[in-house]
């Protein structure tokens, strides 16, 4: 067993020493980033069985729960941390073949995002959560701007909206502290019932907006398309694979553990549903492939939020599974699209025609990921689609089910347009040299098939994570149990 604090500490350490590594060797930052994320994955794996047994709580500085900042790593946090660090790992492999202009700074920020997002999911303290959100966001603002002129605007938009989000969040934290007198999540959860209902309402809404921005909820998500479109591929990948997962985690933690009220979940349900259908509708008519993926990403986040907010155990499980799939598939989509874009020298879908025969790996990656998202049998998306429909019908949400399926049809429409273009149309442009992405594509494809054919692989963690979310009493008990 290895101390889980290292998951946050090591990336932060490595990140700030990145300039030194760069001085030692030009190539070193890439390798360091890869090694760090690999190390994180190892640490998580080492703790896996222990956490599945019972959540690990680490009190920083050795103080008891309500007083000190504590880390809480239950199944849910473990799942999210796996997603975050896994995404970072895969993208680090991808980055090995990429050249960034200021690569020490790039990897500095990249590791910072990883650390921040991991911190978000592991912390047991509200203010600490805020701090980690800020770390993540600030790193993301700067990373976005790495793609040159066009990305500045996107970065600026994200900065402003993210700032507004922070304000809401901070205000919410203030209200909470004034009402409860503690910032420990378990403590707040335990005494949430005592808060004045009106204040509770306002506070919850403040959090909804603050965290909703990270979780890409409508109508707080319009910074997303710009960002995903303009940012470097690896950044789009980590944003949709890791940061949004962390956002979902934070949202779930706040509305399941802290303020478990049906009305808030209903808000989330409606917002999620609107995000879903709106995202798909807009994605359908995009001509820019990255923008299309961005809107599709939004829609998926909406779907996940909506399904999780159904609040039943099955629904939460389905939502979490979809989250896992979303991370895997979107990263694959983004890196394949990235290669296709640089091969064509254009982000326009029409210019990608015929690339299937030239850029075989990337086109294959894109296709398999698209089919995964569309829920073709024997791929992972099929299982989660099945679970989602099942749980949403189980919750008597006919309309939502129909909406989800309708969205899926629209999704088919725009993804297949690209796939057809890739394979069945004639090459129009001169193909440029691009990076090789065989390893990440193979890894991700294996995961897609693995989860599609044998989903039991992650059945246990999912079940435990869902149980943890549903039952906030046990969370409180575990953290405060010593008192």
């Amino acid at each position, binding site marked *: 067993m290895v101390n889980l604090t290292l998951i946050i500490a090591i990336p932060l350490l490595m990140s700030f020493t990145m300039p030194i590594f760069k001085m030692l060797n030009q190539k070193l930052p890439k390798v360091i980033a890869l090694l760090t994320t690999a190390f994180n994955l190892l640490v998580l794996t080492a703790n896996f069985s222990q956490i599945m047994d019972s959540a690990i709580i680490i009190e920083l500085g050795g103080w008891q729960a309500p007083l000190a900042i504590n880390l809480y790593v239950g199944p849910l946090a473990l799942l999210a941390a796996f997603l975050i660090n896994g995404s970072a790992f895969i993208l680090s492999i991808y980055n090995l073949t990429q050249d960034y202009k200021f690569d020490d700074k790039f990897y500095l920020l990249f590791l910072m995002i990883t650390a921040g997002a991991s911190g978000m999911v592991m912390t047991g303290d509200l203010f600490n959560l805020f701090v980690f959100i800020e770390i993540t966001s600030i790193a993301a603002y700067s990373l976005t701007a790495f793609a040159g002129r066009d990305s500045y605007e996107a970065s600026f938009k994200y900065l*402003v*909206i993210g700032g*507004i*989000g922070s304000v*809401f969040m901070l205000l919410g934290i203030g209200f909470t502290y004034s009402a409860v007198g503690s910032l420990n999540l378990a403590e707040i959860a335990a005494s949430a019932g005592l808060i004045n209902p009106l204040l509770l*309402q306002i506070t919850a*809404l*403040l959090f*909804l*907006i603050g965290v*909703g*921005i990270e979780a890409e909820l409508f*109508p*707080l998500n*319009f*910074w997303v*398309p*710009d960002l995903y479109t303009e940012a470097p591929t690896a950044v789009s990948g980590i944003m949709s694979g890791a940061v949004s997962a962390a956002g979902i985690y934070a949202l779930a933690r706040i509305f399941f553990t802290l303020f478990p009220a049906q*009305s808030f979940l209903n*808000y989330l349900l409606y917002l999620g549903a609107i995000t879903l259908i*709106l995202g798909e*509708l*807009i*994605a*359908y*008519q995009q001509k820019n492939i990255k923008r299309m993926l961005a809107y599709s990403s939004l829609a998926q986040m909406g779907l996940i939020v909506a399904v999780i907010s159904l609040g039943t155990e*099955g629904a939460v*499980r389905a939502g979490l599974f979809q989250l896992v799939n979303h991370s895997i598939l979107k990263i694959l989509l983004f890196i394949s699209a990235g290669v296709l874009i640089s091969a064509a020298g254009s982000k326009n879908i029409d210019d990608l025609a015929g690339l299937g025969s030239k850029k075989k790996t990337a086109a294959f990656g894109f296709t398999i990921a698209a*089919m995964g998202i*569309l*829920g*073709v*049998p*024997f791929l992972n998306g*099929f*299982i989660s689609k*099945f*679970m989602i*429909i*099942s749980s949403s*019908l*189980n919750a008597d949400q006919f309309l939502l089910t*129909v909406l989800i*399926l309708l969205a*899926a*049809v*629209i999704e*088919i*429409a725009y993804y*297949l*347009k690209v796939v*057809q273009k890739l*394979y*069945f*149309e*004639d090459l129009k442009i001169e193909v440029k040299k691009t990076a090789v992405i065989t390893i990440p594509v193979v890894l991700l494809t294996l995961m897609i098939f693995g989860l599609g054919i044998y*989903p*039991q692989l992650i*059945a246990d963690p*999912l079940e435990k994570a869902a149980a943890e979310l549903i039952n906030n009493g046990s969370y409180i008990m575990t953290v405060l149990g010593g008192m």
Partner: protein
Amino acid sequence: MLTNYIFIPIAAAFIAYILNKRNRKAGAVITALVSAYLLLSLTALYGRWDITQSFNLSLMGYKIDFLLAVNPLSWLFAVMTAAISILIALFSINSQENFKFSSVFNLNFLIIIGSMIGIVFARDFLTLFIFWELMTWTSFYLISAGKKKMAGRAAYRYIILSAGAAYAFLMAAIFIFQQTGSFAFDSAAEFLVANSPAQSIMLLLVISLPFIVKAGIFPLHIWVKDAHGNAPKEFSPFLSGMMLKIGIYGMIVVFYQLSFFKIIENTIAYRGLPLLSYLFALLGAVTIITGTILAIRQEDMKKLVAYSSISQMGYIIIGIAIATPLGFSGSMLHLMNHLIFKSTIFLALAAVIYRTGTTKMYEMGGLIFRMPLTFAAYLTAIIALAGIPPTNGFISKWVIYQALIEKGYLFLAIAAFFGSIASFMYVFKPLSTVFLGQLKPQHQNIKEVPLLMKIPMLILILVIVLFGVFPGIQMNIINQISGYLGIETVNYTLYSIQGANGAWNSLLIFNIFSAGFIIALLLFSFAKKSKLVGLLDTYSSGEYITDAESYHYAYQYYRPFDRLFDNLAAKSLTDFYETLTKNLVRSGEGLRRALAAGKLQNYALYSVLLFVILAAVGWII
């Protein structure tokens, strides 16, 4: 092991893909071998209707049983699939020499074969759905690999309609699953019968949606023409011959095994037929009429045959929907026969395309002297399609007529008569414009197709004649199916079928026909020998004929008739659906303009607005 029939082709698919990259003929050879293996082993399965296989899986907390079983109905469909695949694979060994996507073709084709067998062996919704999706997706890629541009659009339409319907199916299936705790057909049927009729009917209608789409039944037939017309030439026979039928298979499952007919038994009826069944039959009738009218208009021979497929599906639907023993038997007969003659037609056309490279009828002519066997195959097949005795196509139509007249379903009968008489028109069009008439100068040096492509056509010709004379071979399995589904059986012998108000005796008719033919032949041969002259040596009202091209009547062959339906054809359903999607696009665009126009201050405002609105909502509640 029933799984063998499913997974051997699927596994072979990948092998075929890899080998085909090295040798262009390898894929087709493997496909042929695998289908031959399937056919042989399926033959061994005949009569063993008690074989079942099941897997229990606890999937993400859901307890799921995957059930496979073989019964006469599924056996028939499996055999049909395997048989036609052999012929197509044989045909494509040579015909795909210059086909860019031949690896993709064989990969997807084998997966389709496997998944179709999976579909017919499935005894529960989830297994059915999984293989159904697999088939849909692979066929999407196959259709996409066809003619440039149009094939893409066609495949696109196909997948969207199919997927929408399949999702609806999944939703209904999961709904039933939650009520009964099982996906199995048997328990679903029990539940549906016990459940409130209105809900059961709704559920079953939703469940039959994907089958309606696949069978190309009005008003969800819009994908058929373009998909069949533009798919790779070797895939069209399968698409038209087999994949439309799998929709019918699904309908039979819904009607009989999921007790749709039992549930609607006591609802309002017209001439003893529940209105809903009558509605299905009427859909069939409309399908016949629209398919026929549009087929007559086509200038592209593959599209013409595609529309004809749509209309022929109408017959099958009518027969099944009226649910009399004769109707059902007629439908099943027609189903088999349509597979046989339609794949013959498509293969003959594929041979023509292989040699000429075009599908436009007016760009060809006079090919009969260059490709006589192809012509013979086409001729035999269209005689069957038009339902002219003594071929198999007449028998099945005759049985369906018998069923319609027996019950006095006048309007269904009119549609059936219309479709049948008008089919003379559309089948004659390619005959006249492609095979007969003047040979185009650029086609002077065309040769008959190679031997491997001839063999499938020859086999099919023989099968058409065989079943035309001995329909009893088919009736044997059909009666087993009827017995299995609990329908009364029809009396038959090897060469005769007993109708409701008359019998069909094919041997007698075959003999008399031969007699008539012999008398005419004698008369012909006793008369003076005639002198052979060229095709351009004809009566031309005194004009000088300079080139063959302008002396060939092919374009807009039935213009006067088409004029009658110009208005109807202009109002196509396709346009309606296109407008729908266009509006969808526009709404997406409008939403994006309104909300996400790139104004940062708006984005900031949204967050505040959301807070205010939600707070207000919370306040009110």
